[in-house]
């Protein structure tokens, strides 16, 4: 008998491959909502024109639905008479740009450092781990303040300030995953074959970071948008001529008792987005962590 007799025809995959969740009508909701926000960020300013510089002090603090010289302020006006709805739409783009840039930078830096530390261990790991320790023990607010002070206020500065400490989460995650992934036999097999270190890292380690990293990224995205709001609250955020939800909310805090609409609507916009991103993140986490081992 030769081995061709035992040639195996395509056998069916085992249970795990064919698992799929039962379709729920609400399941698509977070994706739809995020898509709407993305559209708003992309073309919103075209649909709802907004000039952050133009103010109309005689039309300040008007409640939702008030008529103004330029139309109806469906969500009211702010303390210098700018339309809150237009501000929310215009702020979407800023918030997304900040969120995505911060997460992008942190993700790239964190994943690279974490993967390298976890894979090589020893010296690179010691260096990265100490850096993480120090950053975690370093009062984050201090960094944000100093960066805001060091450079001229601007979107790039906010992104930088939020990124300086933000990579730590990605690094910790990637480090632990790459540490356990490097113990997997396929990595050993690659090393035995003589696959180069870079190729091993990119082909045999990095793909296994992707799932958890994307899941973390959704959470961090929401976190970055919130942090921008907090920076604005402390007066360290964006310059006055850049609109963001955080700015609007922070600007409205003095009017919470009298002109609630300034803070409440962008707050709702922000909360809905963060919840939807979080739900998507949850789903990604579930999908990628379920069958890790």
């Amino acid at each position: 008998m030769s081995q061709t007799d035992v040639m195996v025809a395509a056998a069916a995959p085992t249970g795990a491959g064919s698992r799929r969740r039962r379709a729920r009508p609400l399941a698509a909701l977070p994706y739809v909502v995020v898509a709407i926000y993305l559209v708003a960020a992309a073309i919103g300013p075209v649909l709802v024109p907004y000039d952050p510089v133009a103010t109309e002090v005689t039309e300040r603090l008007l409640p939702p639905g008030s008529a103004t010289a330029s139309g109806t302020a469906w969500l009211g006006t702010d303390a210098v008479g700018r339309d809150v709805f237009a501000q929310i739409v215009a702020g979407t783009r800023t918030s997304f740009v900040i969120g995505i840039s911060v997460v992008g930078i942190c993700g790239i830096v964190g994943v690279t450092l974490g993967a390298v530390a976890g894979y090589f261990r020893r010296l690179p790991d010691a260096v990265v781990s100490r850096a993480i320790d120090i950053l975690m023990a370093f009062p984050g607010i201090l960094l944000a303040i100093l960066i805001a002070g060091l450079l001229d206020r601007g979107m790039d500065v906010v992104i930088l300030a939020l990124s300086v400490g933000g990579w730590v989460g990605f690094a910790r995650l990637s480090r632990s995953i790459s540490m356990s992934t490097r113990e997997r036999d396929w990595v050993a097999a690659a090393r035995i074959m003589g696959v180069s270190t870079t190729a091993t890292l990119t082909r045999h380690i990095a793909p296994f970071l992707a799932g958890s990293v994307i899941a973390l990224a959704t959470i961090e995205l929401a976190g970055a948008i919130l942090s921008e709001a907090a920076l604005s609250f402390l007066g360290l955020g964006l310059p006055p001529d850049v609109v963001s939800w955080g700015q609007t909310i922070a600007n409205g805090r003095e009017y919470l008792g009298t002109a609630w609409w300034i803070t409440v609507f962008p707050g709702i916009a922000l909360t809905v987005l963060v919840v939807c991103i979080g739900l998507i993140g949850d789903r990604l986490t579930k999908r990628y962590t379920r069958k890790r081992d």
Partner: protein
Amino acid sequence: MTFYIAKRLAIGLLTIWGVVTAVFIVVRMAPGDQATVALGPDATTAEVEALRHSLGLDRPVLVQYVSYLGDVLRLDFGESYRFGRPAMDAVLERFPATITLTLTATVIAVAAGLLLGVLAGRNPGSVVDRAVSTFTLGLQAAPPFWVGIMLILVFALRLQVLPSANGGSLAHLVLPALTLSIPFTALVARMTRSGVADAMTEPFVQTARSKGLTEGQVLGGHVLKNSLVPVVTVVGLQVGTLLGGAVVIETVFAWPGLGLLLVGAVGNRDYAVVQAASVLIAMCVVLLNLAADVVNARLDPRIRLEVRR
């Protein structure tokens, strides 16, 4: 164990040195210094230069660093020019308020978070689970200062049941602690949920059931403890973050904590206070992480206390 703790403390010292150095660099890099701020907008350039000289701020940065490091080694953090007394005293004075607030928030967050997390995690995918997940996401998504001010408006202004600002009594603690605990609760709940959900699928849970235990006994006796390790780690980290990072809430409630002190000190370029506060916070973070690891080692005998490299 002792060896482990000793080694971790040694690494902790290294971390603190790193923080000291980083803070030093970062603070000196920032534009404006003690002399500009102290003399205010009316001062002339010559006056500022004179003060700078008498404070030694015109010396080379390296010289300043070495002399500063020497002082720190002697546990002398210098004099705060704003407070007119040793910086560490000013910092330590704020510490009890910070600790009170942080610990209260932690207790609330851990209690509520565990409850929510267990409710959600015991039946992954159920209606309760999805409700709790969405709810905790909502908690995480609400901007803390917005929540804080809303709480003031509702409980202090409209209902007049709680005071709004400043420390002093237990009643003053309620709103800030609650506000601070909201995102924290969400975090604990989510960590607990995933821990419990994971633990529920562990074979030893089936073993426990096969012994004829009720679901409650299974949950309490076998599942919960097994899901706590990541929760403890996260709580340790988060408490550390809150020590100096609760600025927003301290601002909203005029709570005289470390965060506010730190922000003020940076604004005033009160280097001594910035550095003393950073060192204190770093020390706490190091100790908290160590404590979390030790608790985890207690919780889970499998965790060999190894020094993370």
